[in-house]
């Protein structure tokens, strides 16, 4: 049981600055997912916490201790590796026991803990096997078991599910979450997979180029992204973006018009002459009247009195049927957009067709052109 704290932590390898000033606190018992594109420094963050790397600057705390100089074995943390890193010459039981034996734990305690962990993970029938006689999912479980028997105050996971197939990954996600609830131990989990981040995290730390982009609950990051990078990283298909200029009472781009008064703009947003507008594929809706037959050109995007606050006119390029839903690949001005529509809306549409969409103003995100910072005042 311990909370974790990074204070102004930097890590450089020569001239390469991998972590550039990280401040984050993980509460006791919290499940923090560190997510980001490859090379963003997320694995380094984990290795810093594990003690496999030492920070170039700043302070790392586990519990009440500053652990910068504490060797891994004295940090009371256990780590699950992406490659599982099971000792190939030891049986499952010996793999699970290894750490406890090194710590000179009494034999009966070792046996009890190994049996308990094996039971919890369904490994009991496999205890005498060598790792090479296990499937990928079983190896994964042994790797987790090796961490569990240690009863650490912090668990570290380095992309533990990335070598599993999709079905097994979904199953292990659930098991990991259940495990977290049972153990109620602090867990720091690194992944590049946004689904893992969204489904498992109490809070997410999204990293890019060694800098924290946003720290918050999955809902925070998804619905209230702090910047364009966060908005683009989470969500699949990803958010559509278009650069727009203020014209009177609206942000306007070719084919796009968004009334500014409908947007909760912050001060910077009020002042901005040019912005980047963002809207998620499933938030764009086919405009009534256009259903099934396509829209008559022109009139729908005019700033007429009865036009909705958000209008998007697009040319259909490709349809991607996905059963109940269809991904529409469209072009808005010069920008490629993806719209997720329901099959019944699509009817007999075909490429080349002109379409009109709208969206609720609350679903439109506004970002700065240069820094990508969010220009909205989120409420609630």
């Amino acid at each position: 049981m311990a909370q974790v704290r990074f204070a102004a932590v930097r890590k450089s390898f020569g001239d390469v600055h991998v972590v550039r000033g990280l401040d984050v606190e993980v509460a006791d018992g919290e499940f923090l997912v560190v997510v980001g594109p490859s090379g963003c420094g997320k694995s380094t963050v984990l290795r810093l916490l594990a003690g496999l790397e030492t920070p170039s600057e700043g302070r790392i705390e586990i519990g009440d201790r500053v652990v910068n100089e504490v060797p891994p074995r004295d940090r009371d943390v256990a780590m699950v590796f992406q490659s599982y890193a099971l000792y190939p010459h030891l049986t499952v039981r010996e793999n699970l026991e290894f750490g406890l034996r090194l710590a000179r734990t009494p034999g009966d305690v070792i046996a009890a803990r190994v049996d308990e962990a094996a039971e919890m993970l369904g490994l009991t029938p496999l205890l005498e096997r060598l790792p090479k006689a296990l499937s990928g999912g079983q190896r994964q479980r042994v790797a987790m078991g090796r961490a569990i028997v240690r009863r650490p105050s912090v668990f570290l996971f380095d992309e533990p599910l990335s070598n599993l197939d999709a079905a097994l990954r979904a199953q292990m996600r659930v098991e990991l979450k259940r495990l977290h609830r049972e153990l109620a131990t602090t867990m720091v989990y690194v992944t590049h997979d946004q689904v893992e981040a969204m489904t498992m995290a109490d809070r997410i730390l999204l990293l890019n180029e060694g800098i924290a982009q946003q720290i918050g609950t999955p809902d925070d990051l998804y619905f209230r992204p702090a910047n364009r990078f966060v908005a683009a990283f989470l969500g699949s298909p990803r958010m559509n973006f278009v650069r727009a200029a203020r014209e009177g009472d609206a942000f306007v781009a070719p084919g796009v018009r968004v009334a500014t008064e409908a947007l909760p703009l912050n001060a910077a947003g009020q002042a901005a002459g040019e912005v980047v507008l963002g809207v998620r594929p499933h938030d764009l809706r086919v405009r009534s009247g256009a259903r099934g037959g396509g829209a008559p050109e022109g009139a729908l995007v005019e700033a007429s009195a009865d036009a909705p606050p958000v209008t998007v006119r697009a040319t259909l390029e490709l349809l991607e049927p996905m059963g109940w839903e269809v991904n529409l690949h469209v072009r808005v001005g010069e920008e490629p957009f993806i719209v997720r529509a329901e099959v019944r809306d699509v009817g007999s549409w075909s490429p080349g067709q002109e379409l009109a969409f709208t969206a609720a103003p609350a679903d439109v995100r506004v970002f700065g052109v240069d820094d990508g910072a969010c220009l909205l005042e989120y409420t609630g």
Partner: protein
Amino acid sequence: MTPAPLLRQLGRQAALLAVSIVTLYPVLWVVGIALSADAGFGAGLWPWPEHPTLDNFRRVLGATDALGEPVFARQLLNSVVVAAATTLVGIVLSTTAAYGFSRFSFPGKEQGLQAFLITQMFPGVVMAIPLYILLDHLRLLDSLTGLTLVYATTAVPFCVWMLKGYFDTIPRDLEEAAIMDGASQWTLFTRIVLPLARPAIVVTALFSFMTAWNEFILAATFLNDERSVTLPVALQRHVDAFSTDWGAFAAGAVIVSLPVMALFFLLQKHLVGGLTAGGVKG
């Protein structure tokens, strides 16, 4: 089977048979001479003697020195001691050194590895005279310790390269997992790395042993006393300027080969494992 594959198969078998004969014929000759009563050079194409006898073996095993004491057992012991000590010293030094070269970065790492390589470029004869002078200064001439030292210095560089190559293939994750499990550097080396490197260690051990067991030139240079020589030197002494006892020489050669053959049979499983070692994944 259609004719073409059959022909190809026959051709392949014939080629393999030819190579086998070329390889084994000289060995058969040696065995034949060892078993024949006369010097054996009168033999025809078929090297097997008409009246096989073990006399040559008896003569070799029963050889005595100037004082009339039996020397073969003593020489055999010399060979075993030198080869075993060379292997032991070679493995202990080269596993630790190779692990260091594989895992740690330190000043002089690259140069050190290259220096090891350079020592392998000179034939043993070139080094015989400087080594003789060195051993003389150290008063280690005519001593098994001196010979072991010399053999170890030639075996270690090769073993280090060989083992470093293998250690490089052991995933670092495994070591980091052990570190996270609380292992010290020494624990993870002895309990994780060494067991995993066993095939490579067996191969290098075999190499060290054979190098020491078969070596002749340096042994002949540094050892004089009949009681301190190793078997290859003793063997050569059956054939000198004044007499040539080919029968005893051949019998001795057969005897000297037996331990190496036995070792190969014992370790061939590991040998194959060692050669395919890169294919095993953690």
